[in-house]
């Protein structure tokens, strides 16, 4: 192909709105990719103060419907023809906390010709700071519609969509334009809500989209394997491209605590294994009393965890911080002695790379993608409280091990970069485009 590939990128979380790894990874990858391809990035929300060079960013919260000319006679398609969901259940939660009714509605498959007035109304759902509140379903639906309309106005070679919230849009655009589609999977429904959630409507969106996609990019081999084994997506189109991390200035701080600090950082939800962290803390404290355990983050399990901590009488050795700003997170890392990520299923686990950057030895679960990158982290199966505890104790007890882990982690970090990951994605694009052109030639 003569020109730089043009990519229509569909994102959900993006700075400054960050909820978890999705936004960080979408940003890191997109920024690095923008040096190799032309990108139009459609997001539910953009901040006028946050723009990335060389990327055309369109935020639906700031979007002016008057600029769009809807040509419904030549480019008609049946919206949402690929998703046969009549009623969407409540309480099937994607990334965020429970206790909120998500979306209850009936999709109509006959709705054509969206009118401007209606569209304007529909754009209202993007005027929010919480992408995951009760209107999530509506937001996903409206995002898909708007993205399709915008897609007709853009010239592009490839559709690249990040996670299920944008995959609906990607499918619609693909079926309307026949352009190749990349489904980029940062997290699966079965990671967030357990394998038993497989079959629910979100997982169905994921499956349908991945079946339809020309390429599926997973953030780890771990996730790629789940996609192949659980979602039964043909292996030949599933690729693993690891996440990376931008170098940030790191520092160590003088801790005011005489004890060693072992930290957990992440959403306090079942997926992240907070109960396991508490079990591990209980076990470690039996043997080494001069340690403090810190659980940083918030989520639907926080209340339960606080109660459990009190029940186990860990009060003075186990601390909850609630939500922490990035600055506070960095401070906590700078006084920590061990970082623990006991996730039940972690597609990647960017926070472990952040901890490694801060020179904090990591103990992570084998059920995580970052384990493939951080060869120097000590690992255990998430359910193996003994091994997890042992790993923590060993780091606290043996300086030789601690020093070596930190040193080896720097070597691991030196091997990953967003540039490298972007280059891998870029090669996948080229490879696919070349294949398509070959096919065309062959048929022609």
């Amino acid at each position, binding site marked *: 192909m003569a020109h730089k590939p043009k990519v229509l990128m569909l994102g959900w979380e993006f700075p400054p709105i960050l909820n978890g790894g999705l936004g960080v990874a979408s940003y890191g990858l997109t920024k690095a990719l923008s040096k190799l391809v032309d990108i139009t990035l459609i997001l539910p929300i953009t901040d006028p103060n946050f723009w990335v060079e060389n990327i055309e960013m369109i935020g639906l919260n700031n979007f002016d419907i008057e600029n769009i000319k809807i040509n419904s006679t030549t480019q008609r398609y049946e919206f949402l023809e690929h998703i046969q969901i009549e009623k969407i259940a409540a309480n099937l939660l994607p990334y965020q906390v429970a206790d909120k009714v998500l979306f209850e509605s009936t999709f109509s498959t006959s709705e054509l010709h969206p009118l401007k007035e209606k569209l304007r109304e529909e754009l209202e759902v993007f005027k929010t700071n919480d992408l995951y509140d009760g209107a999530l379903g509506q937001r996903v639906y409206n995002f898909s519609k708007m993205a399709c309309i915008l897609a007709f106005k853009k010239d592009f070679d490839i559709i690249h969509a990040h996670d299920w919230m944008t995959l609906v849009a990607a499918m619609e655009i693909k079926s309307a334009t026949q352009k190749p589609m990349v489904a980029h999977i940062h997290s699966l429904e079965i990671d967030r809500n357990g394998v038993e959630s497989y079959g629910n409507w979100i997982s169905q969106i994921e499956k349908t989209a991945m079946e339809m996609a020309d390429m599926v990019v997973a953030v780890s081999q771990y996730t790629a394997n789940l996609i192949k084994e659980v979602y039964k997506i043909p292996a030949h189109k599933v690729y693993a491209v690891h996440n990376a991390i931008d170098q940030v200035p790191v520092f160590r701080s003088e801790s005011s605590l005489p004890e060693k600090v072992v930290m957990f950082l992440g959403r306090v939800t079942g997926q992240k294994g907070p109960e396991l962290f508490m079990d591990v803390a209980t076990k470690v404290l039996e043997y080494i009393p001069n340690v403090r355990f810190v659980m940083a983050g918030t989520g639907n399990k926080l209340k339960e965890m606080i109660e459990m901590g009190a029940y186990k009488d860990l009060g003075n050795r186990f601390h909850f911080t609630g939500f922490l700003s990035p600055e506070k997170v960095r401070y906590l890392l700078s006084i920590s002695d061990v970082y623990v990520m006991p996730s039940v299923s972690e597609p990647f686990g960017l926070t472990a790379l952040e901890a490694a950057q801060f020179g904090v030895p990591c103990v992570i679960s084998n059920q995580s993608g970052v384990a493939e990158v951080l060869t120097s982290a000590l690992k255990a199966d998430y359910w193996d409280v*003994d091994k997890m505890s042992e790993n923590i*104790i060993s780091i606290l007890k*043996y300086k*030789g091990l601690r020093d*070596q882990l930190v040193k*080896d982690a720097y070597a691991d970090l030196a091997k990953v970069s967003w540039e490298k990951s972007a280059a891998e994605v870029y090669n996948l694009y080229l490879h696919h485009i070349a294949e398509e052109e070959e096919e065309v030639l062959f048929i022609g």
Partner: protein
Amino acid sequence: MLLMISICFYFQVHQPYRINEFTFFNIGKNKSYINDALNEEIINKVSQSCYLPANELMINLSLKYPNKFKIAYSFSGIAIEQMEKYAPDTLASFKTLMLNPNIEILGETYYHSLSSIYIPEEFERQAKLHSKKVKEIFKQTPTTFRNTELIYSNNTAPLVHNIGFNTIITESVGRILKGKNENRIYNDSNKHTNLMLRNYNLSDDIGFRFSDKNSKEYPLTAKKFIHKLSKIKDAECINICLDYETFGEHHKKENKIFGFLENTLEEIMNSTDFELATPKVVTSLYKPTDVYDVKEYISWADTERDLSAWLGNSMQHEAMKKIYELREKVFAKNNKELIDLWAKLTTSDHFYYMSTKTNSDGMVHKYFSPYNTPYDAYVYYMNIISDFEIKLKNI
């Protein structure tokens, strides 16, 4: 008449006492340190794949060429012990082979340790213990010494000389030879001891590259190997030093490694240019004319051929320091079993498993290691040391 070029084959037989996966929670609970089941399994596996078939081959050659068949072996004391315990048939087969008086057995440290670089008295103790064991089992007293993995520096020679050895085998290292011929006999820097240098190129042709399909010589045959020998200029003795496990274990019999070994040895014995010789023979034929001046430690391990295989990272340094620091306390207890247990923990392999090298050497470390990661190897070892310290207090 011109002397024929001596080809000196020396085979290393060593098996460490691999330790248990000793977790923090095992400390102070009287769990045993040594993984008997695993050690028994490995020595029996290696007996079947290597020791027994290789010995049979050697015994046959020994009978066929009673005067010409001259090779050397070195056994770590703990390998002999394990054969006594777990593989008596294997030991019997070695004993049969050693009935040939032309086979020389070398001296080394009983526990295959790095004691020479830490505590001279301990080194002397382990070397003497080893000679005693060899004498007891094989009725020979070693006069040629090979330190653990050919570790050597100018400091090593007097230690070895003081306990009655007159020859040391060590590694030929380019940065020290600086173009000098490795296939000759050298003096140590004090000119008391003969030094024989391992020809690493030819040794690695067999040891590392025999099964490597990307190697230039693949498939290596006896003819090609003899041809390479004949290309060497001004050689007095060419020393091929290999792990005995090279034959049948590191390289499987399906790769025709035994055929290669047999043909090579036979071709040498039938040749008019070469003859098999042992270090004892070689040092009676040739005298050193130059010094091999080794200011920093060398060894046959890894690409660096220094101590980095055992002392390349902070875990290895800490673990090594810890075990030698305990010596005084251990000996103060005057308890034979305790001393033996401690000494088993000085074996170099424990530290080798802790290596974090990631290159092709790293792959070799991983191949030998019974543990998942170098961190595991370190943690189990350090937990054992912690347990051992408690034991010391309580005795």
